[in-house]
């Protein structure tokens, strides 16, 4: 009869193998894209509309704590970086639009907010946690993925974006 220690070992092992899941979307790979309505006026927006620009796609919801912290800092970020070459797109995954609208009334932001209550885009981009952001370069490839958020990350995010902007400017100076 297996003594309790070995039974415990097998149970823990079982648990461990239940929890492996590869991340489908990888840095360097193409960005899956999306076609979603704006939260404010319902106009349809596609990722392809921003070809040639560096795009920062952020998946968030009003009920997620770290997301609440990130939005005001993204607002500063958008103001500090040239709009012509860089665009933040925040995809709201609240099931109930009213929750998102109530939040944005308290924390107004000027960059693009799209609404995806069914989470179709979140499945396509296989978002692993809330929040998750994808840095997409001007050719539509994923340059970086940021899982979770803490205020001190904003420095590194800005650093990566600037690096992309410099390399884009260098590759085809207009």
């Amino acid at each position, binding site marked *: 009869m297996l003594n*309790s220690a070995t*039974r*415990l070992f097998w*149970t823990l092992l*079982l*648990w461990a193998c*239940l929890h492996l899941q590869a991340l489908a979307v990888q840095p360097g790979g193409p960005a899956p894209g999306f076609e979603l309505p704006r939260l404010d006026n319902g106009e349809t927006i596609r990722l392809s509309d921003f070809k040639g620009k560096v795009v920062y796609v952020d*998946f968030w*919801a009003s*009920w*997620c704590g770290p997301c609440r912290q990130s939005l005001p800092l993204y607002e500063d970020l958008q103001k500090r970086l040239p709009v012509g070459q860089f665009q933040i797109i925040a995809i709201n*995954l*609240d*099931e*109930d639009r009213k*929750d998102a609208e109530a939040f944005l009334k308290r924390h107004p932001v000027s960059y693009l907010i799209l609404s995806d209550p069914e*989470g179709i885009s*979140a*499945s396509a981009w296989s*978002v*692993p*946690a*809330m929040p*998750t952001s994808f840095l997409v370069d001007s050719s539509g490839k994923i340059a970086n993925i940021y899982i979770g958020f803490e205020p001190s990350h904003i420095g590194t995010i800005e650093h990566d974006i600037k690096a992309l902007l410099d390399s884009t400017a260098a590759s085809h100076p207009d």
Partner: protein
Amino acid sequence: MTLKRCWTVLLLLTLIELSACAEVQPWERGRLAKPHMALDADPLLSSIDAHTYNSKEAASGGNGPAGGGCGCN
């Protein structure tokens, strides 16, 4: 006596873990995050409850490490 019982409980917890449950995506947890769905929404209320019942009943436990202090009679 308690160790054997504790082992059977641990096994049961594992069975709950293995029980097939719908895959809930990270962005589908809005309902679970609502304030009135919290496991312990009001720590001061649960601490005064624990204190009241522990000093009036023979049973105790189940809400985290209890602070010291009798305050009972």
